């Protein structure tokens, strides 16, 4: 249920960066362990963006895989062949394989975030309010 507040934060960030221009697309990265469900974000976005310059914008989600890093040597585990597995299975596998350096001291260091990468906007302001903001 926290997707509602996360979506509002995302919308606020998008509107701030768009500076009064109409937003057509928002590119987002969602970690496998981010606790953010893209379908929920889309659902809330449609509702929350109504009447804003982001209304009707398309959300693009890119999934960020889980990243496990060795605390002893700093290497990242190569889990590319396990990316599609369940998150817990990926973590267990990474720990079972251990690091190249022989350590099994690995921690999750990525795939936990929710990021806005970029926006696409219509260059010309299209609403009265936007024009006012421009001036």
């Amino acid at each position, binding site marked *: 249920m926290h997707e509602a507040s996360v979506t509002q934060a995302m919308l606020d960030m998008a509107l701030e960066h768009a500076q009064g221009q109409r937003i057509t697309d928002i590119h987002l990265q969602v970690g496998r362990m981010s606790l953010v469900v893209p379908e929920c974000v889309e659902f809330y976005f449609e509702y929350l963006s109504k009447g804003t310059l982001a209304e009707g914008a398309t959300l693009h989600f890119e999934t960020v895989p889980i990243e496990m890093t060795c605390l002893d040597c700093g290497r990242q585990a190569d889990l590319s062949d396990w990316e599609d597995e369940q998150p817990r299975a990926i973590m267990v596998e990474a720990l079972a394989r251990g690091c190249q350096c022989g350590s099994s001291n690995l921690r999750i260091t990525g795939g936990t975030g929710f990021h806005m990468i970029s*926006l696409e906007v219509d260059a010309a302001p299209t609403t009265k309010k936007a024009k006012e903001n421009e001036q």
Partner: protein
Amino acid sequence: MVNIPVLRSITEANALLAEALRARFGQQDVLVLNIIASPGAGKTTLLERTIEKLNGELRLSVIEGDPTTSLDSERIAAAGVPVVQINTDGGCHLEARMIQAAVEQLDVEDADVVIIENVGNLLCPTGWDLGEDAKVVVASLPEGDDKPLKYPMAFATAQAVVINKVDLEPYLPAKASVLRKNALQINPDLAVFEVSALTGQGLEGWVDWMREKLAEKREF
């Protein structure tokens, strides 16, 4: 069509505030624990027993998070330590801005340890940094010994797990040893304590861990 790069974390505001809180707690030499568990796991009872154990030795303060009611903070106040209740009004987790508001009401500089009892929920609270030194998961045996498998993020990001209600083990299909094994499988560094907050069994190990964490923090 114009492309505007953003490259920012959506929860950046929370992360920045949490770091500011961590710096503040660090200056004041206060150990801050974020307790995460399902509803009914025994978080508040564990706090009551912890307060009794450390009474006269360490100064504790508590921040209580609940969707509604002040039932938990009343229990903590009755145990004799400063407490602030946060009602999230239905919200599923605490956020750094709520902790910032709560610490204004606590004399944090007069505390050795601040314990934050998060909203009863094993999922959402793990995604929100509150400026704590360590997350602690309380997992009670009646919930089943498979919780680390179903909620890996909570266990992967915690430093300690308190397995509560172990006095009920003879009556349950769940085993503390299995819960421990499942938790260590994704986080081998976890400190694991098997306790019964109700009977007091095993609490000494948990309280010792808190003492050690505080000592570690004050060494720096």
